Each structure stands twice: as C-alpha cells, then as structure tokens.
C-alpha cells in the first residue's frame, strides 16, 4: 500500500493494449454503409415467356393477373382485363391514389401475393423502386419486375 492510505492504482497498460487491438479490428470490420436490398421475383414476371416441357396447368378462371405499368405520363393498373390509368403529378406517379387502389386490391384478393411491375422506356429507376417499395408496404410481398 502506498503511503497516505490510498489504494494501489491498477495497471492500465494491458487495458490500453486490449482496447488498441479491439479498435483496430472494429475499424477494419465496421460497416459504414448501411444498405438494404429489395428482392425481385423474376419467375412471376417472366413466367409467361419461359416455355416449360411440362404441360401448362389448366387456366384458373378465378385467377387474376395484377400488374402496374409505369409510363412517362401515367401509371396503368391492370386487374385482369380491367385497365385503369392514374395520371402523373409533377412528373411522379400519384403515390396516394396508387396506394389507395393497391389497398383495394389487397382487400379484394386476400390470398394473392404477386404483382408484376412493367415499365416503359424513359422511366427513371428511382420511380420503379418507389413503386416496388409501395407494393411491399401495402402487403404485396412477391413483386415481379418485367425486364422486357
């Protein structure tokens, strides 16, 4: 014990050594970019185009293909044969109206999970991702993007 009644000071050198190594290791492995991904369903989008050796299943009259078409001036919503258009607002798709229709679809087809997104030439990639994100947010987990 040192004079004066105080306790012995701990030896901090090993702590500093340990922390130095830890800091170096963590600096090397730190993920500075927190990125995420949206996973597309290619099979859903291209199922019509890809031929298969097995005979095609009989058409289900109740099955309805749902699709969204991103255009330069308007967004097209296809519900089987029924097609409706939503004009763009300030060069962007009308998010509020699109969200409303997607929720209507969600209630109308509770078991259906897939929607295909088609896009015209000249549409920005950011818009495509915006529509994709909106679809997932409104309860459509299997989003297919048509690459044609």
């Amino acid at each position, binding site marked *: 014990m040192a004079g004066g009644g105080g306790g012995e000071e701990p030896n901090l050198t090993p702590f500093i050594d340990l922390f130095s190594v830890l800091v170096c290791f963590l600096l090397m492995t730190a993920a500075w970019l927190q990125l995420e991904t949206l*996973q597309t369903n290619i099979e859903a989008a291209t199922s019509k185009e890809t031929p298969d050796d097995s005979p095609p299943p009989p058409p289900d009259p109740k099955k309805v293909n749902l699709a969204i078409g991103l255009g330069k001036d308007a967004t097209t919503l296809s519900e089987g044969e029924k097609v409706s258009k939503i004009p763009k607002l300030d060069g962007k798709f009308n998010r509020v109206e699109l969200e409303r229709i997607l929720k209507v679809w969600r209630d109308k087809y509770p078991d259906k999970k897939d929607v295909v997104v088609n896009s015209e030439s000249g549409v920005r990639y950011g818009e495509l991702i915006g529509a*994709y*994100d909106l679809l997932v947010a409104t309860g459509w987990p299997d989003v297919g993007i048509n690459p044609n």
Partner: protein
Amino acid sequence: MAGGAKIRGNSGRLIKPPGYHLLPEWDLTHLRHVIETRRYKKAGFSLSLAPMVDMFSILVIYLLMNFSSSGEIFFVSKDIVLPRAVKGVPMASHPLISIVGQQVMFDAEKVEGQAGVTTTESNDGESPKLRAMLRRIKRIERQISPDKAFRGQVNLQAGQETDVDEVKKVMRVLIEEGWTGINFVVDPRAQ
C-alpha cells in the same frame, strides 16, 4: 543568556538571541528526504491513463455498433445516388453489379481463388465480360453443390436517375445466364 538582553557588536545593529526550541520529536533528516523525494516526483512528467481508457471504451462501443459480422465491403460509386426505400431487407454478400451511366461494372469478392475481381464494359445488352464472369461463378457454385438447384443471387445497384432501360438490359443478361435472384440495392434512410 537572558531573553531580550542586548548584545553589543561591531555594528550598531541588535542581535536577538534565538528563543525557546523544542527538541525534534521526528527524525528530521529522514522527513526531509521524504519531502524532497515527493517534490522531485511532482516535478517529473506523469501521464494519467484513466481518461485514455475512457476514450477507448467509448470508441469500442461506437465501433461495436457499426460492426458487421458478415464482413462484406460494398463499393458505392460517388456518381450513384441510390433510390430510397423503407421496406428493404439487410444486404447480403453477393456479387455486385453497378450501372453507372452507360457502363456496367461487375465486382466479386473472390472468383476461383482470385480476390477482388472487377470488370467494366459498355452496357449494350450483350456485356460479354459480365456474362463470362457470371458463367465462371455459376460453374463454381454448381461444382460446390451439384444437387442443389442454382438460383444465382446478385446485388444490382444503379442511380435513381438512371433510365430503367439500362437496368432492364442488365436484368435480361442476368436472367439469360440463370441469375434470377436479383436484389436491388437501396438506401434505407427514411424518405
């Protein structure tokens, strides 16, 4: 000598005789040595390590929060402003394909023992270098797990102002080569 008595010297000044002295109770020589030693120690440079340990602790906690157990490093070109999305899933480590302007870049961590493989070429819808790389990786994957159905996974990144046609060209190449697991890289920050 009696206290207060005046002594006459050569000069006219008065010399006062010392007063009453206690006998030293302590070993003054030793005490003087101890005091001197302490004074010497205080004069020397002494670094207090406690704040340093505190700083390291905070740094370690901060870095632990940014720790990535998968260890992937993603390269995002400064020319790319990623589109924002709120419903993304954490990015997994797959080969990365970037579309910058009219160029398409391929970046894989490791291909056949070769680390950090990258290719750059024009995004004309053919992309022979990209196809060659995809085939190489696909071949390796099939050798590793021949019984498993191949569903190639790639991360695809493009700027939000990119024409969707450029993205679709790359998507067609990927699908033709059997890479149907396309993950679009997005910025998860709230819109």
